[in-house]
């Protein structure tokens, strides 16, 4: 009888300690990690309007991250290039995994993990415009997504050739692509991997590569998550999980 009591006590202790440790891990988020992901970038973050689900490499990364950090759920929150910073500021998301390029300027405002994807800026044109290279674009209007850093690099590249372009900003990729389709813009400039998703028989990418873009997981400056995310990313980089994820979605 005494022995049984002793055993019960031990169990209780274990349960309590387990619960406590669980609380620590989960924190105040009640088991759900809210992650800002893109909803219109096939291959990275794409919201399928028919099945109402998110898919893509970044979505999977976010899901794995939530699991690795001890969260029960991952709630994808659709963000655009424009709204992702705001969402982070307002705290509607805990972190952002949304083709967020790491720049020095952004680093001042947000914490970034080490990059999980390296990309290059590319320019896409309609074949019917007969543009072959960057030189042809001199004086043309280039479409970019609002809030992206692409225009800086393109202008820089154009300046090297003594040219200059104007820019038109669009909030989402579908709108950007529609502008290209109807000819409102002469070309679009954004991350190559994103452009691939919109390539078709009547469009092509210019051969010029503008700048290397590295995507990182962004958290609010000073967030307790930053270090833990970085630790996870380090582990994944070391054991090849990240590389495997990249090849899988290539």
């Amino acid at each position, binding site marked *: 009888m005494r022995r049984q009591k002793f055993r019960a006590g031990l169990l209780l202790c274990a349960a309590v300690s387990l619960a406590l440790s669980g609380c620590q891990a989960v924190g105040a988020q009640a088991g759900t990690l809210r992650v800002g992901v893109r909803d219109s970038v*096939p*291959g990275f973050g*794409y919201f*399928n309007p*028919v*099945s109402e*689900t*998110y*898919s*893509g*490499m970044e979505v*999977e990364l976010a899901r794995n991250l939530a699991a690795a950090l001890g969260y029960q759920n991952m709630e994808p929150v659709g963000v655009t290039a424009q709204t992702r910073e705001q969402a982070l500021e307002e705290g509607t998301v805990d972190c952002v995994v949304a083709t967020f390029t790491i720049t020095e300027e952004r680093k001042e405002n947000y914490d970034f993990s080490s990059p999980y994807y390296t990309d290059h800026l590319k320019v896409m044109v*309609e*074949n*019917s*415009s*007969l*543009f072959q290279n960057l030189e042809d674009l001199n004086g*043309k209007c280039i479409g970019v997504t609002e809030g992206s850093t692409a225009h800086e690099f393109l202008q820089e590249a154009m300046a090297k050739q003594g040219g200059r372009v104007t820019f038109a900003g669009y909030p989402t990729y579908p709108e950007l692509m529609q502008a290209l*389709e*109807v*000819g409102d813009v*002469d070309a679009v400039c954004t991350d190559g991997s994103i452009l691939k*998703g919109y390539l078709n028989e*009547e469009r092509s990418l210019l051969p010029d590569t503008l700048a290397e873009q590295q995507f990182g997981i962004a958290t609010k400056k000073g967030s307790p998550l930053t270090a833990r995310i970085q630790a996870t990313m380090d582990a994944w980089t070391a054991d090849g999980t990240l590389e495997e994820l990249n*090849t*899988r*979605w290539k």
Partner: protein
Amino acid sequence: MSKRLKNKLKIMVLVEIISVLLLGGFLLNLQTALSVRNQETANEDILNQIEGLMQKRETDAEQIRESYDEVYIAKAQTAAFMARKITGFAYTDTQMRQWQTLFQVDNLLILDAKGQVLATAVDQEVDYSISRYNQLRQALNGTEPSKPFDITQDGVAMRYYGARIDADKMVVIVQNPQEMDELLERSTSVESIFGKISVGLSGYALAVSHTDYAYLYHPDETMIGRGAPSTGLTAGILKNQQSGWVTVNGERLFISSRLIDDVYAVCAIPQAEIHASRLTTVIVTLLAFMLAVTLVIAYAMFIQSSHEHSSKDKETNYRKVGPLYYNRKLGRKILTVSSMGLIAIIVVSMFMQTLFALSRQTMSDRHPLETILKNNEENKEEVKVLTEQYNTRYLNKCQVLAEILKTNPELQSEESLAELSRVLGVENIWVFDKNGHTVATDSPFWDFTLSTNPEEQSYEFRSLMKGYVDYLIQDAKEDEVSGELRQYIGVTMRTGEEHEAGFVEICIAPEKLQNLLDNMSIGSLLSGVKVGSQGFAFAVRKSDHTFAYYPDEKLIDRSVYDYGLTDFDLHDGFEDFITIRGTKYYCSSEESENYYLYVAIPSSKLTRYRLPIALVTAAGSFLCLLLIGLILSLSKEGYQAKPKKMEEAGGNEMVDVVMPDGGLSKTVAAAKRWSGDRGVDWEEKTPEQKLLSLLGWLISVLAVGMLFVIAYKDYFFEPDSVMHYILGGEWERSFNLFAITNAIILFVAVNVASAIVRRLLMFFSKTFGARGETVCRLLDNVIKYFTILALLYYCLGMFGVDTKTLLASAGIMSVIIGLGSQALISDILAGLFIVFEGEFRVGDIVTIGDWRGTVMEIGVRTTKIKDASNNIKIISNSSVTGVINMTKQFSFASCDVGIEYGESLERVESVLREELPHVKERLPAIVEGPFYKGVVALGDSSVDIRLVAKCAEGDRVQLIRDLNREIKLLFDKYDIGIPFPQVVVNQPVEFAKATMLQKLQSEAFVTEQKEKVKDLGETVKSSTEEN
């Protein structure tokens, strides 16, 4: 059964259960592994097929686009030509609108080099100067028209065609390419490709976009557009491009995927299908295994237990093996039974594998065949639609031409027509006057006149001149001179009221249309079909029985009879093996309007896993049987004397018989075999007979189970499962595996059913007495023969024999049979008369000829009679004549006794009066009597009196003996003497000789006496002896 034996039995049963479980699990896994591997290679082939189709789709789409663009480019060029040629052409919106109607386009406009709109049919606020339209301006640089391109705005696509007028001006045609898109959608969409792919029985092909991972094609339409990862088909699985198991929407699937262009092609087959056939195969194989093992165990038990009872077991039968003793005799017997069991297991396993492989194939062949048929039908429609579309396009060309030439007669020169031919994209142009003579042409036949011979091709166009029709489109025909395909279209040039007028005729080379139509031919349809691993499809023309399509082109258009096919193979729903050019294929056929379509699989591919599985099963069974055999035949002690001898059962059913080879064998007595209850006392049987009985029971149980399953097959098997197919009887009627299987099932089932009915009859016959027994035995006989005949007839039907003709010719047959089996028929008829006239019944005592005995059975053909010595005589019913039936009324037992002459008859009679009633009391067999019948004879040495008693015929013989005994005892009691031959010995006496006188006197006496009786009649002394 000794304790040791019981323990052994327990171990045996345990070993059996364990081996069944082990073997079952192993077989299930093996079967799954093999099925999966099989499916994997099949999937690989299907993916190759899809890849081929996807590539073909590219070229097809290219063709469709090209032929569509060609039409509109021609229109733009014609417009440009007119603008160029017509002097003082006005670039006005009105003119554009006219042209828009003439050319049947959505918009037609004139642009200058900067992109300014000079004139337009439809006002649109489009800035043509932007870079998006740079492509159009390419036309200005040379004579070539611009490359067409699409711009989609608000979901509506517009296609742009530009043609140069001069260095500064161009015609632009804007057209909604809906017609082209629809055709592309119909013939080259992902859905049109994947929807036609069949994977196994219930599997399907899926298409997932590589870009956004949404389903491009799924048999369930609601799934199309949904994200594949969310249903379980994750990027990782797709990316692997390997085969494996996935759960998609809760359904477990075996899939193989491959990235083709931008589409993941996925072959998916439900787990249920891979598992379905495997379960039945394994269960049947396991049943065979269990049967074999159970029989071996039971046999060994029977032997051992019979050895325990008999002391025949000699110590010499044992050999010491290490610490154990090996029973050689037992071992040998077990080995025999085991090897028989092993062979049975292999046969059953092979049989099941083949059966399932074939039925699975037949069923999965249905899908591609149906798809081909469906596509063939669809293609027919498509051919019609396409021809119509193209005719409309060509007609428009001609109409445009007619319009141009009407308004600008100056263009009716060879040069202008040649240029017009070029821009319109036609071969030649003719302009005819109202008499049918050529006015102008760019062809070499400048003096061509329409024929007046209705047989000739050009005659038809006379109706145009007469004004009966406004246009005429001829079907494309091969040109008589060049052999190339040419099509002629004419449009009248009539203006206003005139009846007769000239017309314009164009000649077209409809290559593009022909290409498209070729893509829809049966050959093109079948060439894309891949069935399982290395399977293919071919078609045979119904009209002349030649190959319409075969993968090897050499065979096409050759007669099928030269390549191993026969008339027997050429029909709808054929399913069997055909050997074509030395290779055996398993083929299924389907009939279409013009063709027999076949799907063929090399038979080697079909049954390649048969042997390994059978061997594995055999090896497993061998190990198990070996183990059991060793356990049974080895024992710790050698020979044990078991004095305990079981009491011999009283039955006499078992008889020792000497076999031809001199051996002694036990057999069931014939009487036992013929009598109603066929059973022999269990204990009486030899181990072999016990084994046979056990086998019989087990098979009966299995058969009953099988019958049950078959009766409720809809409940046990899915409607489109393999078992349902086998039992459903939809298969080909010929000597094939399905027919054999069903014949076996039917045979066992009918036998079991008839056995049950016959047992029931036997049971009833006991209740209903003699007549019932007779009828039941007759019925039993009838059932026996009828079932065999019916089975034979039915099975022949299943084997493809035309039983109806067989029945029809039964008239002739019956004559032949009747002559040959006259005796049989008369036997049967006689049997019927015996039964229904009630001459005698089973159990009656009868005398037939000189044979007296009890009737055992009145059969259809023979009657069996057993005499008092238990010998059975089998008499043909027709030979049953002069029957004395002794059971109809009571018989009399009569007994004659002799009394000495010295005895007083009156005393004897008074004694009998006293004693006869007591005799009756002592002999219960007496029904009435005994009665004193009086003196029968005054015998030589006795006065014979007779006693009779009424009794049943069956008791008569014994009663006579009993009566004799009673009378002897009675006479002894009253000192009544019964005479018997006695020999009295006398002293010989010296006889005196007759004197002379005496001699003379006697001679005189005889003579005198003779004289005296001369007139008296002679009286013959009658015999007093009578019975």
